[in-house]
């Protein structure tokens, strides 16, 4: 049983609301959500799961070198992503497809990266400040902290205006908590009291190594050792993820410094399409988490509110359409011209890059002259 007495939740695995002394403030934090917003949580989770299945299939069919599935982690991501405000900056790791989607990203951009067309994929400035994926574990936590330091130096937090004060949300996994950079990020965040939330998705596995090898201490308790207010939540409860992130981000933006959330969730699939989890995980564990599926739970909750079956059918249809569109556009993707590799190595002109580009052009032209 991965949950502990400390684990906060609002909706139990059976879809019923839970009320405790400790979770009352979080209930208050979701009270303002409209029915349309509650339905939107479901829609995003369901559409992105279907997308994720499609992307995995496309990889298996040779359309991508790699796919990074996020199945099982939708609630942690959708709740936290929705809790950000438009002025916030989000630094994902590389599995936050649901957050990318709800921030308006065309998920084909993620496919473009994993297909080998680009090493980046989108412009954070025109993607609601959703920054690039970072494949090196934990490195981006420092970028997030530096960005949040800049907010502090600019003085655009702590005014008390929740719709203007800025904050940063950074995602990472249980494996990243062992990285020096993640620990340094928490140290710097604490030193400069950054307006920032560290959002740990503890999906229990760093490829094949279980979280118990990363830490003998519950990870949210480790964060407390850095002086960060930290909580552990049921990451498969989308409303809890929303409430915890909303309160933590608003505290951070209001001048109360960095906060830490450990969301307990599970990676239902492989780390990436390159590994085989049957080699290191037992079936009982997987079965436990499949029975705690975040989308099933939320659907039960919505059904309890009286949401009609037609809504779920409509979302399922939309998800199929989205997946079909992604498939069609993936198959139509073309490789960029070779010249692009030289274009943005530097911002200012650079003689070596220019000379190499010219040499390559001349080499390519030599084939044309030879009529080959």
């Amino acid at each position, binding site marked *: 049983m991965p949950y502990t007495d400390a684990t906060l939740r609002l909706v139990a695995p059976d879809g019923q609301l839970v009320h405790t002394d400790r979770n009352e403030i979080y209930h208050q934090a979701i009270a303002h959500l409209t029915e349309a917003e509650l339905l939107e949580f479901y829609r995003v989770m369901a559409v992105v799961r279907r997308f994720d299945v499609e992307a995995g299939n496309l990889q298996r069919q040779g359309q991508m070198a790699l796919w990074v599935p996020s199945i099982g982690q939708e609630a942690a991501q959708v709740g936290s992503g929705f809790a950000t405000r438009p002025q916030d900056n989000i630094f994902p790791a590389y599995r936050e497809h649901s957050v990318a989607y709800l921030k308006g990203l065309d998920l084909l951009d993620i496919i473009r990266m994993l297909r080998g067309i680009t090493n*980046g994929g989108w*412009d*954070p400035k025109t993607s609601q400040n959703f920054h690039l994926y970072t494949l090196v574990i934990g490195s981006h936590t*420092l970028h997030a902290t530096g960005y949040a330091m800049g907010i502090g130096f*600019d003085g655009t937090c702590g005014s008390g205006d929740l719709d203007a004060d800025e904050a940063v949300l950074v995602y990472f996994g249980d494996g990243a908590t062992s990285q020096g950079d993640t620990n340094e990020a928490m140290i710097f965040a604490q030193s400069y009291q950054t307006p920032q939330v560290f959002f740990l998705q503890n999906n229990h596995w760093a490829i094949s190594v279980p979280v118990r090898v990363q830490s003998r201490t519950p990870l949210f308790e480790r964060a407390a050792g850095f002086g960060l207010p930290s909580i552990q939540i049921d990451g498969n409860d989308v409303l809890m993820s929303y409430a915890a992130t909303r309160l933590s981000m608003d505290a951070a933006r209001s001048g109360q410094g960095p906060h830490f959330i450990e969301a307990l969730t599970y990676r239902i699939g492989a780390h990436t399409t390159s590994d085989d989890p049957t080699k290191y995980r037992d079936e009982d564990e997987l079965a436990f988490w499949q029975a705690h599926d975040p989308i099933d739970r939320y659907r039960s909750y919505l059904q309890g509110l009286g949401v009609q079956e037609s809504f779920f059918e409509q979302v399922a249809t939309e998800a199929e359409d989205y997946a079909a569109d992604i498939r069609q556009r993936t198959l139509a993707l073309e490789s960029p011209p070779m010249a692009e590799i030289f274009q*943005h190595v530097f911002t200012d002109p650079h003689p070596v890059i220019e000379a190499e580009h010219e040499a390559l052009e001349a080499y390519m032209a030599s084939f044309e002259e030879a009529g080959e």
Partner: protein
Amino acid sequence: MTDFPLAKAITEGLKAAMSQDPSVMLMGEDIAQLGGVFRVTEGLQEEFGPNRVIDTPLAESGIVGTAIGLAMRGYRPVCEIQFDGFLYPAFDQIVTQLAKLTARHEGTQSFPVVIRIPYGGHIGAVEHHQESPEAYFAHTAGLRVVSPATPHDAYWLIQDAIASNDPVIYLEPKSRYWHKGPIDTTAAGAQMGQARVVRQGSDLTLIGHGAMVSVMHQAAEIAQSEGVSLELIDLRSLSPIDYDTILDSVRRTGRAIVAQEAPGNASVGSEIAATLTERAFYVMEAPVLRVSGFNTPFPPARLESLYLPDADRILDAVDRSLAY
């Protein structure tokens, strides 16, 4: 024209850059109250305030990693790494992140981060305090690498580095920190990326950077007294390397020697030798020779005088070149 030690020339350059552009900020260990272990940032926090000159926790990866985030925010951070041998905890953030992020953003975001590193020997210091790491960075796409040899160049190059929209590794020859020289604050030197002909000569071209420039100068003086005319080139920029200036010289002299404190294996000197072979083979009267540190860890300081190239070792190479 005022005389400044090289360290204070950098201070003056930082001051000028910070006065002109409010997005320029300094970060590093012990740089605020103490002014840095070499006092390069002395007085700057007092002058520019605690948000623009910040003492960081003792974590080099953290310094560079957060500087990257600050650059995304619109700042132009200048990071101080305390000593050459202490930079490697930051190596990943420099090479894997900073150097590649401009390309990963496909032109939508620049990373104008300067990393100042005191480097090199001649100061008799303990282990990890005398190294020359320039080849790692010159090898890395996405970084510019410069090193001044004089106070005048130190003053202008730091401003060029800060004004650059690309990441710049700014290597400070710490053995030259307290040598004084004139700064002309009204006349910028050449643009960043251009080498400087320090002394004209006709028999052989000596090429080097940083603290090696003064050693090459001694060698040239001795050679002159023996009737040998050496041309001297201060590279100033190690990435990109200014081959126009080097080739122009070598086409006249027909001979070249590269002097450097760094180990010779896969070094900046190796790259120059290879390029001269590719581009000036037919004008060369002799192979390009390298005078370098040895391919050993930097030795205990009592042994550094033979490890570091001096005028005699350079002149020995000059004799070998002229004998071809």
